[in-house]
C-alpha cells in the first residue's frame, strides 16, 4: 500500500488537477522525489534549490510536522499520509 500525499488546492493545478496522490518511498524526501518525477512543475514548490523542503510549505507525516522528525529524512511507511500545507497561515 503506497503513501498518500495530499496537496493544497494551490498546488493541485501543478499536479494534474488532483489534490490526492499516491507515491512511494522510505523517507519523505523519496516520496517527494517520486511525486516530482511525475509532476515536474511541482518541484520548485516542494524543494528549494539545495534540495531541502521549500520554506513556504510545511510537510506533515500522519499529522506530525516533519521538521520534528528529520525533515526530508523523516521515515514514512506504506499506508502513511503526507499532508502539504502552505506555510503562511495563522497567528
Amino acid at each position, binding site marked *: 500500500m503506497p503513501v498518500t500525499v495530499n496537496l493544497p488546492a494551490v498546488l493541485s493545478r501543478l499536479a494534474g488537477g488532483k*489534490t490526492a496522490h499516491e507515491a512511494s518511498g522510505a523517507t519523505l524526501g523519496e516520496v517527494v522525489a517520486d511525486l516530482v518525477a511525475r509532476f515536474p512543475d511541482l518541484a520548485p514548490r516542494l524543494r528549494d534549490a539545495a534540495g531541502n523542503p521549500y520554506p513556504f510549505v*510545511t510537510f506533515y507525516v500522519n499529522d506530525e510536522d516533519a521538521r520534528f522528525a528529520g525533515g526530508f529524512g523523516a521515515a514514512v511507511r506504506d499506508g502513511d499520509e503526507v499532508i502539504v500545507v502552505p506555510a*503562511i497561515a*495563522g*497567528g
Partner: protein
Amino acid sequence: MPASPHAAPPPAPAGPRPIDQVCRLCAAPSPASAAAICEHCLGPLEPAYDPARRLPGRAEIASRPRSLWRYREWLPFAGEPVVSTDSGFTPLVEAPRLARALGVARAWVKNDAVSHPTLSFKDRVVSTALNAAIGLGLTTVGCASTGNLANAVAAQAARAGLQSWIFIPHDLELGKVVGSSVYGPNLVRVQGTYDDVNRLCAQVADRFGWGIVNVNLRGYYGEGSKTMAFEIAEQLGWRLPDAVIAPMAGGSLVTKLHKASKELVAAGLAEGPLPRFYGAQAAGCSPIVDLVESGGDTVTPVVPRTIAKSIAIGNPADGRFAAKAIRESGGWAQAVTEAEVVEGIRLLAETTGIFTETAGGVTVSAARRLAQAGRLKPSDELVLCITGNGLKTLEALTGALPEAPVVAPRLKEVAALVERAA
C-alpha cells in the same frame, strides 16, 4: 399581505470592495479574493495600495469617529466598512510608576485589554477581515485561534449575521472557551496544540471555501493591526515613541506595527526616527526570540510549553518577518520565565490598575529584562502594547495571590487586620 414575523431577514449590505493584493516575495499581482498566498511562489500576499491615493491630514483624521476606521486610507478597502465599525481607539495610558519600575524615562500602556467588543487586540484584525469577507460575498467565516481571536470572530460574526466555524486547542482557559461559545458559533475543540489547529484550518479553508480570517483572509486581516500604531502616534500628539514592545505569537503584530510606523512617516503624519521594536515571548515558546538571537532567517519550530497560551505558537508564520522588522529597527527580542509571566501581570496591575492576561505579563516582564540588560535605555519613552484582558486567564494566577482574610461582620476584627497590616 403583512410581513411574517419569520420572514427572511433583509440581505446583508454589500461590503466595501477589498483591494487587489501583491506577493511580498515575488511581487506577482493577485486580484482581490479569499486567498492569502501567491499562486506562483506560495509567498504571503499583501494589499496593493495605490501610492497615488488621497491621504488625509491630521485635522481630517481628528474629525472622524473614534474607531480604527479613522485610518481607513491605510486599510485595504475601497468604500465604507459595513460591520464592526466601532472597534479600535483604545486608551493610551501614561504609566509613571511602571516607568520607574522598569527603569525608563516615560512609559505608556496601549490598553487593548479594553478593546471593543471582546477585550483583545484581535478585535482590530477581525474588524477588517469581516468587512473583507462580506465584500467578497462570503457568508461563513472562521479562524484557528489560541482564544482571543476565537472570541473576536464569534462575537463580531454574530452581530454581522455571519455563520462562524471556530477551531481552538482543546485545553484553553475557561474564559476563552465561554467567551466564544456564548455568541453561538460552531466551536470546535481540537486535540492538539495551536499549530495542529492551524494546520487543520489550512485544510478546512481549502475544502469548504469559508473565509478563515487568519488563513485565506490573512492579507486583509493583518492590516487591522496597523491601527494600533496609528493610534499610538495620534494619542502621543502625532509623534513616535523611542521604543515599542509587543508580545509575539505568529509575529504579525510587531511586523505590522513596524510597517505602520513607516507609513506614518511617509504620510507626513509623524516625524522619524522610527521606534525601536521589541518582541516578547514566553521561554516555553520562543521561536522568534531564538531567531532574533541567532541572526538567521529561518524559524526553527518548537512544541509550546507555557501558561501564556494566547501566544503559544510554535510555528509562527510571520516569524522571519517579525525578526527582520525587529533587527531593522534596532530593537531586540526577549523571552521570560513562567514565574515572570505572573510577576509581569502583577506589576502592571499594581502600577497602572490595568489587569492583563498572560501575554501582557510576558510583555511587561520582557520590558523589565530588556531595561536591565541595557537594551532599553534610561532615557527611553516606551509604549507597551497590552493586547488582552486578565479576566480571560484567571487560571494563571491560581495560588499566586494572597488569600483574602474572612472575618465576622465585627469592627474589632477589621481593626485587628488593620493593626497587623500597619
